Every structure is written in structure tokens, then in C-alpha cells.
């Protein structure tokens, strides 16, 4: 014990020597000061691999592989210099920053032999730092108040949602039952209705088939006529050069019908005979002819009807395929339609599809009655079905919300469902927390999705990740990271794109004003 006190007293004296700028003791970390006490005028490198003369400490030559003999010079590549920075915080810098002409320590102790004119501004820095810390603490305190309120709201909301969920689960069961009952009634009515209508339908189809054959023949005639017209040299072959003279085939509108363009219309052949032309080339050529003569709109409508009415196979290829573009469009629409309704029962969807009303033939009385009954049953079913689906939707919304991580105390929950905007020179950036991040050009134009809520990055609730945004040209899909800091209100502070298609939002919110978290941060 006594020995310890003696060492301690010596140590205190030693510390004051460090501060006294004695060259041999420069740059020493007080926590390691004991190791620098002279033992028989020797110093042992920290790694124990070498013993050197005490005078070789801080003599501007690196003797210890671990850099321990030169804490106060730049001699060792792996050395560490300790600035006391009295009045501010001490820092440890790499030895390479000692006497390099740059003031790194506020007490100027690192530039004792250089051209740099450093002034000791630790006192000023210290007081500014304390003011900043105080402000920070105050902000945190009031922010934390708001955060606690938000947490309260969040928790309350969660409770409410749980209650609502169990209510809905019951209601769903009842609605489903009702819906099934009505379905059965509808089904029965439709069986009777269909049997009655079948008679009329067969007659109708016969008529349509005839009409189509006529159309197909007309189409073929038109194709043959075009062939004769385009076959300038009348050799019975349609050649690339013959198409190149017709500017309507200039797909890319660069003023020239290139060989590739002409080949496209010949279904990638160099030439085609009449039959080939009719089956392969005509479907490609016809829309352009129509376009050329301003006829494009009408056939599109016609095509629509065909597709809705009939199976594709039943259509004579030569007759109806030219409407490729329209057809594609239509398919697309259907696709979207399907997407939007992804939540719906497939069964329900099949039933719900509105049958296009063909020109109504005159039905007999009994048939009309059956139709009326079936309509009634359908209406009733639709009502119950809609109710069921509404419940279902609300339920899945709640389930989704309950699955999201709104923070350890639900403090981020009130942000769910809100959206915030930030404008820079070119874009408006929007962030709907826990939903999506988007970008829109200021001068109008389509919204681009930068990402959809994915997860928290890390465990400290400081960074949100929005992933799987719109794909980047020649690159990955966009994504956004949102970094949160404490602030008295919630708003976006800045948005940048440090990497192509990787966005970075800075956002402040009271929800990030956790006092416990700051303490952890400070220790790091």
C-alpha cells in the first residue's frame, strides 16, 4: 500500500513533467505514463522485444517496432501522439501528424518544431463545445418529450389496432358465411339462365363466324393487292429494295428505310413470294399502311371486340393479327388490372367480369324472367362480396402495420401514413415513412420510385432502408437510405445521390431524440 502511494506520488510529478514540455516525455498518453519511467536508464519497448537507452526515448529515431519509444516525434510510422488540449478534450493523433506543418492539436503541442504557427485555442473550443453540448442536451430533452408523446400515441394505436383486428376477424367470418350463401343462390339462378340463353348464343355464333370469314377474305385480297402494288419489278417476289423505296417503312423516322427496317417487314427474310408475303409480311405491314392512311384508330376498336369475344385460336391469323400494337396494349391493360386486384378472390374475379352486352336479341318471356332472377341474385352476391373484401383489406392493412418495426417504444408509429417533401434545384423528393421514397422532377414529369420500405439498417434505429425502387438504366434498382437525427419537428433536411441511383436522405424527427441512445453514442 505504501509502495503504491509512493508510485502514485511519483506519477503525479511525472504527469506534471509531461505537461512541462520536456522533450523526452512529449506526446505520452498519461494512462501509459508509468511505462515511461526510467529503469536503470533503460526503456523497454511495449512489445517487450527490445530494450533501449532511456536517452533514445523521443530522440527522433524509431527503435521500437511498436512505435512506443517515439510518442512525441514523427519517427515511428505506427506511433501515437497524445495532445493534452487542456481546456478541451485530449486527442490522440498518428505520429505522422507531428511537426508536419498542420495544427492538429488545439494546444499546438503537435507542432513544436515546424513552420506552422499554431495558436492554443483549446479554451475557446472548450467553451464553444460546452455551449454546443448544452444546446444539444436541451434539444434532446425537449425532443425526448415529444418522442415520449409519440411513443404514447404509437402504443395506443397499436393497442387499438389489436382490438380492431380481433373485431375484424370475427366480422370476416360472418361476412364470408353470408357471401357463400349468396353465392349458392346466384349459382343456381345462373344455371337456369344459361340453359335458356344457350339457344340464342348458338345462333349468334354462327352468324359471327360467317362475318369473320368474309373479313378474312377481304384481308387476303387487300394483302394480294398490296403485294402486286409493291412488287415494282413484278417478278413475283417482294424484295428488300422494293420496300426501301416506301418511306412509310422508316420505323425510326431517320429519313431512310434501312435494310434492317425493310427486313423487319419481310419477317427477317431477304425476299418473300406471294404466299409468304400474305402470311408473314402482311401482318407487319398492315398497321403501317393503316397508320400511313390515318386508319389506325378504327381497327383498334374492332380488335378489342374480337379479343374479348372469342378465343384467339378461332381467329384467322391472316385476318386479324395486323392489330399487333392494339393487341399488346390490351394485354397490358388486362395485366395491370389483374395486378391491382391481386388481393381479390380469383373466383370472385371470374364471376365479376362484366359480360359485354351483345346486341340484345328478343328473348321469350320465360327467359327474361330467368335473366331477371339471375341479375337479382348476382347483385345480392356482389354486395356481400364487397363487404367481405373491405373487411379483408382493412385486416391486411392492420396486419401489415403491426408487422412493421416502429421502434423500441413505438415512437416512430405516428410517422406511418404521413409524407414529407423536400425540394432541390431539380427534383421534389418525397418520403412516406414505412411506405416509400419517391422523386419527381420539379418541372413536372412522372414520379420515380426510389425505394419501398424495407428495414432498419443496424440496431440503433438511426437509418432506414427503402429498397427495390425503379430500375436504373444500365444499373441496379434504386434505393434510398434515410438517416434520422433528433429535431423538434419531423422534416427532411437534405437529399443527395452519393452513388448512382443510391439516394441519401437526412431527416430530423423527435422520434430520434432518445436520451439513452445519445449516451451510448457519446461513449463510442
Amino acid at each position, binding site marked *: 500500500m505504501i509502495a503504491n502511494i509512493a508510485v502514485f506520488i511519483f506519477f503525479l510529478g511525472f504527469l506534471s513533467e509531461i505537461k512541462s514540455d520536456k522533450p523526452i516525455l512529449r506526446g505520452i498518453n498519461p494512462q501509459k505514463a508509468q511505462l515511461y519511467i526510467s529503469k536503470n536508464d533503460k526503456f523497454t519497448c511495449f512489445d517487450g522485444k527490445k530494450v533501449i537507452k532511456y536517452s533514445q526515448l523521443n530522440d527522433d*529515431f524509431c527503435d521500437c517496432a511498436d512505435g512506443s519509444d517515439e510518442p512525441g516525434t514523427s519517427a515511428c510510422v505506427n506511433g501515437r501522439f497524445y495532445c493534452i488540449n487542456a481546456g478541451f478534450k485530449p486527442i490522440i493523433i*498518428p505520429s505522422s501528424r507531428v511537426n*508536419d506543418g*498542420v495544427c492538429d492539436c488545439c494546444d499546438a503541442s503537435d507542432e513544436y518544431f515546424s513552420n506552422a504557427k499554431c495558436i492554443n485555442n483549446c479554451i475557446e473550443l472548450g467553451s464553444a463545445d460546452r455551449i454546443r453540448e448544452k444546446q444539444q442536451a436541451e434539444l434532446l430533452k425537449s425532443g425526448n418529450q415529444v418522442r415520449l408523446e409519440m411513443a404514447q400515441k404509437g402504443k395506443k394505436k397499436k393497442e387499438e389496432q389489436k382490438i380492431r383486428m380481433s373485431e375484424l376477424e370475427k366480422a370476416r367470418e360472418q361476412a364470408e358465411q353470408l357471401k357463400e350463401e349468396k353465392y349458392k343462390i346466384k349459382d343456381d339462378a345462373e344455371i337456369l339462365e344459361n340453359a335458356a340463353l344457350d339457344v340464342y348464343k348458338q345462333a349468334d355464333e354462327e352468324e359471327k363466324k360467317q362475318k369473320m370469314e368474309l373479313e378474312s377474305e377481304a384481308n387476303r385480297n387487300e394483302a394480294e393487292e398490296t403485294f402486286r402494288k409493291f412488287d415494282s419489278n413484278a417478278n413475283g417476289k417482294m424484295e428488300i429494295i422494293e420496300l426501301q423505296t416506301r418511306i412509310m417503312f422508316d420505323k425510326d423516322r431517320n429519313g431512310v428505310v434501312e435494310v434492317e427496317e425493310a427486313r423487319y417487314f419481310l419477317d427477317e427474310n431477304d425476299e418473300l413470294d406471294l404466299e409468304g408475303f400474305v402470311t408473314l409480311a402482311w401482318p407487319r405491314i398492315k398497321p403501317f399502311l393503316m397508320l400511313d392512311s390515318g386508319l389506325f384508330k378504327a381497327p383498334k376498336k374492332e380488335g378489342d371486340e374480337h379479343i374479348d369475344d372469342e378465343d384467339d385460336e378461332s381467329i384467322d391469323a391472316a385476318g386479324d393479327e395486323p392489330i399487333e400494337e392494339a393487341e399488346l396494349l390490351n394485354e397490358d391493360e388486362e395485366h395491370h388490372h389483374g395486378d391491382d386486384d391481386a388481393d381479390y378472390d380469383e373466383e370472385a374475379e371470374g364471376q365479376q367480369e362484366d359480360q359485354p352486352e351483345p346486341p340484345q336479341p328478343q328473348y321469350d318471356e320465360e327467359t327474361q324472367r330467368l335473366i331477371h332472377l339471375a341479375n337479382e341474385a348476382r347483385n345480392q352476391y356482389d354486395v356481400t362480396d364487397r363487404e367481405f373484401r373491405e373487411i379483408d383489406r382493412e385486416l391486411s392493412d392492420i396486419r401489415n402495420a403491426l408487422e412493421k418495426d416502429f421502434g423500441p417504444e413505438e415512437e416512430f408509429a405516428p410517422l406511418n401514413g404521413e409524407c414529407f417533401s423536400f425540394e432541390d*434545384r431539380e427534383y421534389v423528393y418525397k418520403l412516406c415513412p414505412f411506405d416509400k421514397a419517391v422523386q419527381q422532377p420539379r418541372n413536372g414529369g412522372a414520379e420515380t420510385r426510389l425505394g419501398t420500405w424495407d428495414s432498419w439498417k443496424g440496431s440503433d434505429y438511426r437509418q432506414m432502408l427503402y429498397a427495390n425502387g425503379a430500375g436504373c438504366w444500365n444499373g441496379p434498382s434504386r434505393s434510398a437510405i434515410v438517416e434520422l437525427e433528433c429535431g423538434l419537428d419531423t422534416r427532411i433536411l437534405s437529399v*443527395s445521390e452519393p452513388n*448512382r441511383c443510391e439516394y441519401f436522405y437526412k431527416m430530423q424527427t423527435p422520434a430520434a431524440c432518445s436520451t439513452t441512445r445519445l449516451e451510448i453514442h457519446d461513449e463510442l
Partner: protein
Amino acid sequence: MRSISIVLLMLIVSTFAVDKNNFKTCEQSSFCRRCRKVQPGSSPYEIIPNTLNTYANHITADIRNNENQHVFVLKLEALKGNMFHFEIDEKSPLKPRYRVTDALQKEPTYESIKVSSTSSEITIISGRNKAVVFLSPFKIEFFQDETLVTSVNSRGLMNFEHLRKKPEPPAGEQEGAEGDESKIDPPEDDPGAWEENFKGHHDSKPNGPSAVALDFTFHQANILFGIPEHADSFALKSTNGGDPYRLYNLDVFEYELQSTMALYGSVPIIYGHGAGATTGIFWQNAAETWVDIAGISAEQNVMSSIVNFVAGSRQSDPPSAHFMSESGIIDTFVLLGSNPNEAFHQYTDLTGNGKLPQMFAIAYHQCRWNYNDEQDVAQVVAKFDEHDIPMDTMWLDIEYTEGKKYFTWDHTKFPHPVEMMKNLSDVGRHLTIIIDPHIKRDSSYFFHNDCTDKGYYIKNKDGKDYEGWCWPGAASYPDFFNPEIRKYYADQYLLDNFKESTIETGIWNDMNEPSVFNGPEITMLKDNLHYGGWEHRDVHNLYGQMQLVGTYDGLVRRSGGSLRPFILTRAHFAGTQRYAGVWTGDNAAEWSHLEMSIPMCLSLSVSGISFCGADVGGFFGNPDGELFYRWNQAGAFQPFFRGHAHIDTKRREPWLFPEDVKLVVRDAIRKRYSYLAFWYTMFYEHERSGLPIMRPMLSQYPLDKNAYALDDQYMLSDKLLVRPVMQKGASKVDVYFPSKNGEKQGDIWYDIDDYRKIERVGVESVSVNSYKIPVYQRGGTIIPKKERIRRSAVLMQDDPFTLIVAVDENNTAKGTLYIDDEKTFEYRQGKYLYLDFEFKDGVLSSRYIDETAKFSTKTWLERVVIVGLNKTPTSATLRTSDNKSTQLEIIDVKKTSFVIRKPGVSMMDNTWSITLNY
């Protein structure tokens, strides 16, 4: 920076390779087609008897083409330093033909000649050299010490298309002139003789055919090399069956490797080397040029031709080159060596030596297209410090400008450029910004208005301002050939004009081929018109260099003549080394591109341009960690060391990779910094001697045929052998240790990391871990280093030196160290120290090489590592010039090395010595 990129990419389907269709083949180029059609054999050209005129330093004689009776004049002169120069021009051309300016650094010095002639030949003797001009057919043979080294037109491929009037339309319209008896001159049987179309671009060719072509044979050579820039091996390959090597400055998007296609620069210097002689041909012509290579075995296997040679059964035809240029005159320098370094020196004697850069310029550069704003720059800089990775220069690509208007800043992203630069310079760092030659056509842009008002733009064939498409959209191009415009351009760099720059700002001249996105082959129309009425066709390859002349002048004047400018250029030509460093353009993050960085820089180095480097990491694409650190390791031992990346790539600052990768990269960059004193000395010596910094093995080992074609290893000066790891997953690397005499006698080598001694001739398979960069110091050399690595090179200026003394078989070594203020031109007024170190008989001594040069420095000698001595001394004694002696400790004794601890002598001490005591 990058290539035509987005604009064009949107037109091309995204494939990751060059679109060859954008660029001509020889067959698609009318004059190349015409010149290549000339068959070897008897040449129609002959000297007209009795036209010889003899002067003190030169002769003239008339040459006639027997097929059309057109007459030319030959002028042949002897130059100091074992060179000849000859010109062939039309005797009375319809109008003057273009002669290249600005390639030579000054008028050469002429040498007196002795001339004798017979009815069949004229002999010109100058010292040990001799030229024999044969009258019919015309041919010149060059001899050194009575050995035939090079001959001209010995294959009879000479073709000189004289200027002529355009034939009347009726004759011209006839298709397929074949069989037409009405005597059409040969060039005109080619449909492209009077106009040419390529990909929708029309070349009106108002002067018609004007090509010049000539063949050169290298009688003593086993290998031909030079004529950069191509992404190809150092050794030139036979072009039989393929396209000739093309010299036409072009912006080639995603260029292809192992290709003779043209790239960003053109230096028409070719060398032939064999054990007996090294000779060079400098074909001074700035027009589009193609070079056919023959006499190299078809397998392009130099080894096998060497074996044949050794066995005395060499192929019948010695290697030869056939130069074909679209216009100008025949203007050729014949460099007679006789060894590689002498030939390199002859070339730089003509075109100038690279100038000593500031120290920061040879340290590490950090670039990206683009660092987005001031915060981005500040953060990247802070991260380098946080991870303790030294870095000297931050770079800004085109996005810093306001709407791609150079000499302006985008103030939204960069509101305080000068302050940003000051933040950098506070830590000794620099900023380099891009300034391209294209000028945005924008009536609110002063530069555009000035150029429009004063007629400074290059004109199209109708005399209107030529308008192309580049980064800013519609753009025009200043005509840097006009001295007035160059002065205007240089003035723009002055701080009075470019207020938001500093005297320290580095300049990056990119896109200066020039790149024109919507032009033929992504460049300018050949019938555009320049100052003096010359067509762009005549001067194309020189355009970028003329921009550099202006930039260099501007930067010198910007600092009142005090600071050495730092300029990086993409386009280059003969003489570019006088103004700027060159990088190899838009490479890709692929192992093959890493490998290609060495042959490309070797070819540039022997062509005068030593300050060369490749984008570290690869410009296009994303390198994985291994490729990234291997590339940094390779870059650390190349003259220009810059990380750079395309805007579409992932960020790749070292700390964004896993920790183990970052640490290896950090180690490589720090190693570069430890050798900066050596690099700086090499750059200084390069300015003095013109010898390359990065040298092919044959420069030091001209007798070792196995070393001729090596281009995966090289020498730095004559001291270090560098063989970076450039294969994925490599755990071993083959290093070739060359022979001094062509047989088994070699040098001693020491691994720079552990001083392991290697005494062998031939391949050694060396084990490599991730940190290993196989580099070897040659026994007999002394290399200066600094081992205190700071944040930037500038901050290391006063730090002490370490000398690595690696002894040869006689236990001797020599080396040099150059010290100055590392930034100003004051060294040219004798403010420097140039030290010579010698180790001999156990004594290391230092003396001034230039006695009158003086420089005040705080630097001192921190340690001396003696490598390769068998006996370890007990102590050492330092004797300084004031006759004081100090005992020094010997420490860190290892198997092949020991350290003399802290001599502490000032580097200013003009004669000190350290004696080893046993």
C-alpha cells in the same frame, strides 16, 4: 475521363465492348487502301542523275516517279548525336503541303558531312555514320560503323501522291475505271480519291489524293516497338492478314485489347532492336497514319524468331515497317542508336524531355466522375485521413462546371470553390479540375461569345464555325493552331479571368482528340479548316497538343512563372511530354486491362512520354477487392498514379471495400510515398537525360533476347525491377531475372521487402500473398527513401531520408538523390541539391554532382540500410565536411542486411562519409 459514353450508348445496344463499326478499317480508308495496294518490288522512284547538290550539312537531289514523271526533291542532312534527317516533297506542288510544327522542341543541331557519288549511288558520311542513297530504284541505306542498320524504300513501297487538279466531272463519273485506256493516275482509280463517305459523314477532299508512304527495314532487329497509342503488346506484331497499326487520335468507347485500332494519341516513333543495334525512325507527320509491320514471324512469337536468329537460320526478311499517311510530306528522322537508351535519348533530344513535375503530381491522385459537391469532396478527404491513407490530389470531372461551360463553377454544388481549394492546400493537397476543348454554344457564355466574335473557332469547309456535339450539347472547338487564339486561351487560366481557381489548381485536358460525338469516327470532319488554311486532315493528331501548348503557357503565367504546371492530357503526339502527363484513357475494371497498363505505358515511355499511368481500378465497371488492390499495387510503381471511375460505377474509395482489402490498398499507396524521393530523383534525371523512367527490360539488358518482348515486368530507371501481380487468385508469379551478356551472367537482385538475395538468370517463381508486390533492387544501386508517411507528399518535404545501399558482386553501389523546393522553377536557377552516393571498400560517401547548385533544406539522413554484405560491422563512423567524427550504432542485423542508426547528417553537407568498422 470517359468516352462518348451515354449519348452514344443510348444509340448502341449495351454491349461491353468497342463498337468497331464506328471506326474505319484500312480497307474503309481510301488512302490506306491505295498505299497498301503498292506491292513490294521495284520502286518507280529514282534519283534524277546530276541533280545532286552538296552543302555543309546536307545534300539535295531530285527524285522522279517514272510512272507519271512527277518530280520531287530529297533533302538529307546529318544531325548531332548520330542522327540523319531527310525530307521528300514535291518540287513544285500545286499548293504547299503541310509540314508539322510544334513536335520538335527546337531546331536540331546539324553535323558536317562528307559526300561522294558514283553513277549509281551517293554516299554521305558523318562521323561513324553513313548514308548511301541509291539512284535507281531510289533507296537509302544507313550504316553505323559500317554495319547496315536501317534502309529506306528497300521494299519499294514508297508512294507519294502529288497534288493535282480535280478531273472534269465526265471522267470522274465513270464507274469502275478498270480497263479504261484513258490513263487515269493510279490513286484516282480508287473511288475515295476525291471524296469519301463513312457512316453518313461526307469528306469533300477538295485537294484529292495526297498520301505519302514509305517503308523502313531494320536489318539488325529482332523486335520492333513504339508507335503508341495502342492497347497491344509492347512488341509490335506482324500486321499481315490484319489491319495495320493505326495512328489517328480517337475517342474510342470501351476500347478493345490486343488490337491495332487507333486510340487517343499518336506518336509516330518506331524502334528496331537487336543485339547488334537499336535504331529508330521518327516519321514526323500529323495526318492519319497507318503502319504495317512485316518480317515478324506470323505467330508473332518473338522468342521463336530469336531462336532462329541464334541458330543462324533467321527468316529471310528482316523486320520492317511501312508508314502510310494521308497528307503532308515525307519528313523522317533516322536515329542510329546504337543501343536502346541512346536511341531513346536521340528521340527526346528532338522532341524534348518531360519536365520535372511538382512533388504532389507524382504522389497519389483521387478521382471520380464525379465528386458531387463540396461536402462530398470534404468527406472523401476526411476519410483518407481517418484511414491514414496518404493522398495528394482531389480531382473534379465535368460536373463541377455550370452546364459544361469550362472556366465556370456550378455554384449550387460548389458555392465556395476557392475555400474548398484552401481547405485542401492547408494540408498540402491540391485540386485538379477538368477543362475540355469543346466550347458550349451558348450565347450567355463569354468564351463562346468571344470565339464567335473573334472568329476563333475551327471552320467547316464553307468557312462557317464548325459545330459538333459533345458534353455540353452543341459545341465548337477553338483553333489552337492560331497563336492569337492560344494566347486568348492561355489568358483564360489567369486568376484575373478564372477567379475561382488558384495558382495551384491542376488542369486536366480531356476529350482533346478532339472528341465529337456526332462526327465521323467520333471526331472532327477532315475537311474542316484551320489557321493558315490547313485542313483538319493535315493536323488532326496535333490538335490536342496545341491545346496543351496554350494550357501550359496559361499555367506558367498564372503563377508569374514561379510554379511548375500540372496538366494531364488524353490526346498526345510527338512532344506532348514537354507539357503534360498522359493517362491511358477509358480502360475497364478487368484483369486484362490491368495487365495492359504496362505495355501501354512502356510504349509511351520509349516514345518520350514517361509521365504515364492508367486509371487505377479501371474506369468502366466495378473491380472486386482483389482486382482493386492488385491494381493499386501496380499503380504504385507506375509514374502517374490515379484512382478513377466512371459515373455509373459503384463508389470505390478504399474504405468502402472490406477491411482486409483496404489495408492492402493502404499499404500499396504508403509504399508509393516511401519511394517518392526516388521517383522525384528519377523525374529530375528524366528532365536531364530524356531517358524513360519506366523502361523495357531491353534498355538495361540489350543482349538478353529473352527479355526483349517482356511487358509484364519492367525497370524503373536502371535500379528497380517491377513485376506486379496481375492475375486473379495468383499465389505465385514468374519473375524473369535477365542476363547481362546474353548468357548466364546476370545481376544480383534484392527483394525490396525482405532483402532476400536472388542470383540467377532466368525465371523464378515467386510466392505472393495479398500484400506482396514483387519488386527487386538491382545490386550495385543506392536508392533514397522516406519512411515517415504523412497525409500528403507536400507535408513530407522536410522529413529525413533513408538510403538503401544494395551492393553488387564487388560490394560496391552507386546512386543519386535530387532535392529542391518540390514546386517552383527555382531549380532552374541552381536552387537544388543533386547528390551522388557511392559505396566502395566499406565506405559510403556523398558528394554534390553539380557543385554550384545550392539549396537550403532541413532534411537529414535518418538511416542507411546496407544490403548484401557478407560481414556485419561492429559500428560505423560518420565524418562530416567540418571534419567531425561520430560513432554510429549498427542495428537490426538480419541475414542479408543491417541498419546504420541515425547518422543525422544534413543533406546539405557536401562531403560526408560513413565508414564501416569491423
